């Protein structure tokens, strides 16, 4: 699984969401979008599942999180990569 990285931690709303969505529009089922963010994008979470995406969030501190977004169909591939990464 290819990891595509995106850092939105120094952007003001709504730019983070805009960039994430434009990357998701291009994301293939063999790719995972790794997003560095300052806060949990809760409004995004609620829509990801219904749009066919899955996500995994790692909170490093109150203003430092890493978000992994991938197609729901790639759950197994993501888990194998993420386990290796951890």
């Amino acid at each position, binding site marked *: 699984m290819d990891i595509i990285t995106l850092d939105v931690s120094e952007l*003001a709303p709504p730019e983070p969401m805009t960039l994430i969505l434009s990357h998701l529009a291009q994301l293939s089922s063999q790719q995972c979008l790794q997003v560095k963010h*300052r806060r*949990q994008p*809760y*409004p995004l*979470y609620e829509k990801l599942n219904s749009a*066919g995406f899955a996500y995994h*969030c790692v*909170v490093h501190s109150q*203003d430092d999180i890493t978000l992994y977004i991938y197609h729901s169909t790639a759950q197994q591939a993501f888990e194998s990569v993420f386990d290796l990464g951890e």
Partner: protein
Amino acid sequence: MNISGLSFNALPPIDLPFRFFISAPILVLLCAGIILFSGEAMWLSRWHPSTLAVTHGFTLGFITMVMMGALLQLLPVIGGIGIAKPRLIATSCHGLFTLGTLSLMANFLWPNAWLLVISFLLLSLGLGIYIAALAWVLVKKLSQGDAIIGFRFAITALVIVFFIGLLLLARTQAGFYEWGWPTFLVEKLSTKALTDGHAIWGLVGWVGLLIISVSFQVIPMFHVAPSFPTIISRYLPAIIFLILLGMFVDIAITLNIIVLLHGVYAISLFLVIAKRKRKVPDNTIRYWLLAATSLLLFNGFYFFPEAYLTQEILTSKTLILAAFFIYFYLVSVIQGMLLKILPFLSYTHLQQRCLSHFSAMQFIPHMHEFLQKKHGLWLFNFHCFTGIVLLMTIMMPSIYWLLSIMLFVEFCWLLKLMYQAITLYYKTLNKIKLSVNE
């Protein structure tokens, strides 16, 4: 922490916060009318019926109204969970609260037992349902950020304000003292002590704590600024709340500490804003800076030796302090936040529509098109000028008509900006719906 797979409550439909936002300036326009028709007399005492009506028009009708609408959206964004049955709760609370505020203002102007009972019932139901719905969310183990902890203190303060207000309304009724109240409520707490308590818990406890807590979240988020110092964000709301509890023991000492703490908050506000990464001109930042400057001026004026003040200024000191706190601090922050969240909410809700249909993103206008920067700057200028006219009116009540006109101009302009943003939102929504054949 892994939060994969959690089910998040949807953002409430955008028309729910919008109805609170739209109602708020309309109630201020009503206040402008009351000021115009009341003449000079209302500026002579804070107990004047028109002064009470206008004060509640601003604090309930504008400040609380906007915050009620904003919290509906902020909780899902900040805490990850919203209130249950948002349409039912927001619609009923908005209707009851608006009518309750109007009947309370009418009751101050034309005291009447029926109006009193109606306002009592409507505000009890409107605020009661809202507080219960919010408390249901806030007691849950949702994101434990400093902002959420501050919200809990603010909501608790609102409950206290509400009960003191009910007690004050009840005291105006004949036969109150025969209702079998506990002795200390009747003998120890004078009407003035209760009124002071009601005002301070309302302005500092409910609105003040809410604004401070919201700032911990929205300033770093919207302006790419560093987080507030931990000692401020973690402890300031709790300390203010605890000190407020002491006001029934010694109001003077309590107020001194509260004023100083707001000075500390103002300095931290300046520091955080100064350290933001992208120092682009921004109207909301102008409002935050105005609010912080006002808090420092408030401190200076509050502690200025009274021996050096003229008799005219001394007589009006309470009204001047109230003007600084309510108009230059609270209303400034709320207007500034409206300028930021109106376009942001419109944009975010439209963006969410496009998540399953990325091609529809092309229809979403740039965020600044929802609310143009130059139009926001005009609002800021109107606000500053109205504030100066307010201070002048306190000292020279004969220019009350100018204040009324300025309030009318400022809040009509705010209403126009809201209307533009909402109209553009629905136009764009229709385009998106048509493009995806919904």
